[in-house]
């Protein structure tokens, strides 16, 4: 049985609850043991970088230091967390002076970090450690005929493409096909969702969101699958507003783990599908297990 350290990150405890719920369900079904990183702190996300870079690395650094003690790979499902943790590691290696500065911090805080932690994404783990066959074996209700647009967003394969191609990632495509879904060719799969732009320049943020949803529709997708809480939030929560401004769109946006979960026979509730603003029921109902 595989074991990993689990770094939820702030979003999975807030707007991204459904991601955590579905993720835990799916991993349980695959007998993957997750141990939550004790007393983890916010990774600093992208915002902190604009305030203070080295401190941002320090934030990530504390988590890495805590993780290193456990001698397990550290799984970060949120794209921002995944990137920041990776980036911190990268820069600690690349720039001796960053490392030196952090050393002082670590010493003062009674921490040590040698750079041994491997930061992993659920996609990476499912494809490379568990494998398609294992996943197929768990299917109770294949998602036959469900047309999905796989949306990776930016920070998973960029800039550190560790487990998938940078320009046209396919790991999620493979998983979705494995559970019977039909994956549409979606050229915008790594295009930015606008991140926090919605908050700062609504018209810009909304247009980016709209572009993604519209193209998914144009490719006859019935649902967009995401791997990032911020992407999901933007595409789901602001869909109505974007539609009002740039033309009607109606496209449920779910986490890939929710789709896997359905195929594994979990209920919409267990997978947090009810948390969607744009109801996913319309397209997904037929895959839900019959209420016993």
């Amino acid at each position, binding site marked *: 049985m595989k074991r990993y350290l689990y770094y939820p990150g702030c979003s999975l405890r807030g707007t991204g609850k459904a991601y955590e719920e579905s993720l835990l369900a799916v991993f349980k079904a695959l007998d993957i043991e997750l141990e939550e990183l004790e007393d983890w702190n916010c990774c600093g996300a992208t915002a902190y970088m604009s305030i203070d870079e080295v401190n941002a690395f320090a934030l990530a650094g504390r988590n890495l230091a805590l993780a290193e003690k456990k001698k397990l790979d550290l799984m970060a499902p949120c794209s921002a967390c995944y990137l920041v943790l990776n980036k911190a590691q990268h820069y600690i290696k*690349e*720039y*001796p*002076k960053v490392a030196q500065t952090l050393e002082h911090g670590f010493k003062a805080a009674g921490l040590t970090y040698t750079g041994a932690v491997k930061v992993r994404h659920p996609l990476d783990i499912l494809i490379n450690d568990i494998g398609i066959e294992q996943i197929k074996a768990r299917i109770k209700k294949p998602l036959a005929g469900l047309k999905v647009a796989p949306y990776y967003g930016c920070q998973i394969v960029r800039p550190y493409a560790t487990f998938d191609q940078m320009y046209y990632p396919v790991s999620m495509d493979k998983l979705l096909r494995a559970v019977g879904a039909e994956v549409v060719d979606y050229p915008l799969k790594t295009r930015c969702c606008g991140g926090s732009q919605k908050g700062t320049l609504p018209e810009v943020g909304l247009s980016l969101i709209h572009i993604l949803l519209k193209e998914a529709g144009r490719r006859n997708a019935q649902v967009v699958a995401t791997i990032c809480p911020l992407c999901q939030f933007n595409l789901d929560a602001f869909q109505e507003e974007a539609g009002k401004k740039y033309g009607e769109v109606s496209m449920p946006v779910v986490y890939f783990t929710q789709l896997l979960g359905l195929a594994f026979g979990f209920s919409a509730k267990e997978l947090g599908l009810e948390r969607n603003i744009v109801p996913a029921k319309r397209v997904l109902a037929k895959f839900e297990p019959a209420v016993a």
Partner: protein
Amino acid sequence: MSEEKPKSPQAGPNGFEPKIVAFFCNWCTYLAADLAGTSRVKYAPNIRVIRTMCSGRVDPQFVLDAFARGADGVLIGGCHPGDCHYQEGNYKTLRRVKMLRRVLREMGIEEDRFRLEWISASEAERLKVVVNDMVEKVRALGPLQGDGTRDSGLGIRGEG
């Protein structure tokens, strides 16, 4: 905050600057050093190059003699395996160097003071990295037996 890599060599304790004798083969490493020149690649001035036609010409005596006469490090540069201008001279060198390492260890001369590197005619950058790195390491080690007792054990040859 500038981050220059590799770190430029700064003078060691009490300004000790290691002397490194380098034996470069005429066809690969010597050319790499020439290329470094024509492309103005900068590296530490601590090495003194002695040209041989092939790294295979480097007699273990040369290395011992260099250490005996005050070298703090010895670097042998040859063609990459398979690229030797004389078919396989560099393999002969490799074999000889392995034996030589043992001797040096017994004489208490640290690993980092003696190095064999394959550097092809086009690898000026690599030459720079190797030289700077070796100078750094040897500088950190300090002078070889700085107490003047160094001649003992190492016979000096070649008095014309």
